[in-house]
């Protein structure tokens, strides 16, 4: 294992899993993954980094999609 739990690359992997869970309409699990990814990105790259901002936008998009279902 070369990267570790807190590496920014790990955040991107979790973001990828969140997108798949979202596509499979498993919204709660997807939200947990986005949240974990954002937390790692904020601490590794910083809260203002474009990757962090993009992850926040993805999570917001998930929430819009979930709300639109109901």
């Amino acid at each position, binding site marked *: 294992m070369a990267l570790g*739990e807190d590496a920014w690359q790990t955040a991107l*992997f979790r973001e990828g899993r969140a997108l798949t869970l979202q596509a499979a309409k498993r919204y709660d699990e997807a939200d947990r993954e986005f949240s974990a990814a954002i937390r790692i990105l904020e601490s590794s790259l910083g809260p203002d980094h474009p990757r962090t901002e993009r992850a926040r936008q993805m999570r917001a998009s998930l929430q819009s999609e979930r709300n639109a279902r109901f």
Partner: protein
Amino acid sequence: MQRHPIAVSAGILGVLTLLGGTAFFTVRLQHERDTANYQVRVATSVLDFLREDLLAAADPAAAPGHELSVREALNRASDAADSRFADVPVEHGAIRTTLAGLYDQLGRYAEAEREARKAVALGEASDSRPEARHAADVALIDVLLARGKLDEAELMLDQTRQTNANAATDRNERADFQLLQSRLANLRGQFDQALALADSVFQAERARGSADTPLALRAAEQSAANLQMLGRHDEALPLLLAIHASRLARLGPRHPSTLLAAHEIGLLKRHQGQDEEALTWLQGALDERRAVLGEQHPDTLSSANEVATVLQGLKRFDEAETLFRHVLDARLELLGEEHQFTRNSMSNLGLLYSLSGRLEKAAPLYERALALETRLIGESHPDTIALMHNIAGLYRKQGRFDDALAMHERVLAMR
């Protein structure tokens, strides 16, 4: 006359010290004289060889109507060296090391490896000087790393480390090997270890007040590359800007080392998400490398690859595809499909197809790259993990959610 015991002892000590000092300086003088003689001998041989063999071939009278390329000249020199230096293995070894370095700079790694192996063999067979053997070892390990032959490079580095532990090695020689170890660790995805090795060389140079030497700048450059991989971009940027400024002032804007620094700054800007600024640096480096090094040089291909990655991020897919395709074709020809850069190119082109919705074109590239990476570097290497992450994205787009989630699990188990 009564002899004072303390004075006698002091006198004897003084004489012994003088004799010891004289012997030390005589030996040292002899060593320095040997070194100087050796350097003159080798320099003279290299210059004669350059003038009489290498450059004579470029004489228009020798080949009317034909402009000799550097590669052709090197090939001729390589062919001529065996017969010309048959009786002088020390000079022959130095020439082979020089040729290895020149081929390496041209990106002709197969030829560089051939020359470096000859240099190492000559050093082992003859009564070669330690500095000549060191130069040959460094040349061979360097090209083994460039060709992705990591196991053999590691074996040589281990052997050298054991040899060095038993011998008084030069500070610069130790630093050379540390930087090679750092490169090996980087290529194996061990970025923390790679950073520690490169940074120790840089800090040692800085402590000696020489943070601006080529050695210090190389160490700083390797540190910056590993800092980037660890997400420590803010620490990498000042290092890279300082390296670029130093090389710009000393070497000029078109020197390959200056262009490497510009390329690295562009890469950092891309990692920071500053795509437009990244594109300016990377496109500038690409244009200059094309002009200085040629279209097919590995450094030019690296710049083209990074420009394509930024263009892809900007959704300029057609321009990115042209570049990725060109880089992959050139690397397949130059390095073969098993080389790390070629595998990365397959993965990059696969990602472009996946992102632009051409899923049927992405799958075969990903599958081939994954088969190679699993066999050559294993599932736990960061390159393989990144590739599996991208493949999971492809499965998601194909609606294969279970396959995608299984791949995500593999990725997260390996990270």
